């Protein structure tokens, strides 16, 4: 286990370094002189020279990278030019909002995707299976920003049941919080539910064909016990691991969902920063999301080994 952990940790170090290089390299794509962009209306050569010196734009690119990564490692992700706040503070403020939304979406996705996957595997090639597969295709093919707009039309405009936008913290007023976040969470969870259904279906089909399931049936166990205790337990391991890989889908989806429902989270922060040319924030947000994703994958790998004694080696 220790050898595995060390190997896995050593593997993510180059990945994180390359991610940081890619993110830093993004600003090299900017057309024109970044100093001119930062200066805004100002065209005084002395001011420009000062900006270049202050942001070390007069140094070679690799040197600039070293300064930047040193800052990042000491917790300094840079400054937002628009909001006049540190990127780190913005991330700390916005991340919990997105995480709350993502958690609710995950609960909805698990609640729909796993039962649908089980039913479709157990009732293979029946109307149930076809319905579950249709649901999965619908979930994978529906753009979530369209689904969001349709739900707003139905539940906010036509029926008037739910607010069309806004965000209330759980700790402030949980009823209001639920009312504002149920639609966005469903929109975000919908695609993931489809993916989960497909994963669960194929893992269950595999488990149902395994010898231990045949043994359980031969012992005369009830079918529901065979499915839920024997097959499902074994089928869930790969599904939970794959879930970590789908975390990226949730974060990508959150960008659009937050935009539609005006939720002041991570996704809205990156889009607003893009339009205000607040590049330090864009870089900071991308760096934080990818680091989160890498860590989550590491945890999933460890969990996978922990529940699979054969892999411990």
């Amino acid at each position: 286990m220790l050898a595995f952990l060390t190997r896995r940790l050593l593997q993510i170090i180059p990945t994180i370094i390359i991610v940081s290089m890619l993110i830093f390299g993004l600003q090299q794509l900017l057309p024109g002189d970044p100093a001119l962009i930062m200066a805004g209306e100002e065209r005084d050569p002395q001011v420009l020279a000062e900006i270049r010196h202050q942001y070390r734009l007069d140094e070679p690119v690799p040197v600039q990278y070293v300064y930047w990564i040193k800052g990042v490692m000491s917790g300094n992700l840079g400054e937002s030019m628009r909001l006049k706040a540190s990127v780190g503070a913005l991330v700390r403020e916005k991340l919990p909002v997105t995480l709350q939304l993502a958690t609710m979406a995950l609960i909805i996705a698990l609640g729909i995707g796993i039962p649908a996957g089980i039913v479709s595997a157990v009732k293979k090639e029946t109307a149930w299976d076809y319905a579950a597969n249709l649901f999965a295709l619908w979930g994978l093919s529906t753009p979530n920003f369209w689904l969001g707009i349709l739900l707003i039309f139905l539940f906010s405009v036509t029926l008037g049941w739910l607010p069309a936008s806004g965000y209330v913290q759980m700790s402030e007023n949980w009823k209001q919080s639920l009312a504002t976040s149920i639609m966005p969470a469903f929109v975000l969870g919908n695609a993931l539910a489809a993916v989960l259904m497909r994963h669960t279906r194929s893992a269950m089909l595999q488990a149902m064909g395994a010898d231990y399931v045949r043994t359980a049936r031969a012992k005369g166990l009830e079918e529901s016990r065979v499915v839920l205790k024997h097959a499902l337990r074994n089928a869930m391991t790969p599904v939970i691991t794959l879930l970590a890989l789908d975390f990226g889908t949730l974060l990508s989806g959150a960008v659009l969902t937050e935009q539609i429902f005006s939720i002041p989270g991570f996704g809205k922060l990156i889009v607003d920063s893009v339009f205000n040319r607040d590049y330090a924030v864009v870089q900071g947000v991308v760096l934080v999301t990818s680091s989160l994703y890498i860590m989550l994958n590491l945890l999933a790998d460890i969990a996978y080994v922990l529940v699979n004694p054969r892999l411990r080696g």
Partner: protein
Amino acid sequence: MATTATELHEENPWARAWRRLKRRKGAMAALVVVVLLIAIAILAPWVAPYDPTKTSFGAVRKAPTWAHWFGTDEVGRDVLSRVIFGARASLSAGLVSVSIAVGAGVPLGLLAGYAGGWVDAVLSRIVDAMLAIPFLILAIALSAFLGPSLSNAMIAIGVTATPVFVRLTRGQTLGAKVEDYVEAARAVGNPHWRIALRHVLPNIVPPLLVQASLAIAGAIIAEAALSFLGLGQQPPAPSWGSMLNSAQRFIAQAPWMAFWPGFAIFFAVLSFNLLGDGLRDALDPRHK
């Protein structure tokens, strides 16, 4: 996938795949829809009833009528014509960005898988790093830094989709490299580039084809998402994503503005997904 000599005499593998694909009703329906969508996109100027950018302030936000089947938008443009012309942006984004991803990803994957050693190690780490950044977030960041336009969105989506093709090609190449026919080609003294291009590549095409079809579906959604955010197709040129953006503001007064472009995205993406699933079943007999 090794094919024995007797099987080869019996039936060409592509003919067999086509026969299998034809049996799948969903995939065949999807293929017909894809061909229809491409035809509509190409023939847009002849099929669309109106000029998609022509405004008419006498017909602002009109509900669907016989004159305007899908209604009109906030400046009186015909929604049907805009949906028809929008197919051009979406389909070309799908095809161009996936071509970029295949064009860059397949050679790099072949190189990594075939050469091995440090080349493979370096390429694989870069791929890992790119895959660690969530797809849409990388595409948004790239198109933000490149500047908002449809062509930059296509480049951003293409670059973002590349690592998947590198990884898939690399894995398939590693498998094909140790097959007997590659060993034989090496034994008779073929140069490496010839073995990679003439012996390995043709044998790994099926999984690449499946991935390409699914990647087109992903690229169409990504283009719509970028245009929805204002980072893709710029107004007044029509795109399904940017139409949804303006429709959102008028959802209470003109819901038809939101319904049709979204339905078009759904329909196109569904078709490519179904086609990809069908191709996978038809090309890979192990996959059920």
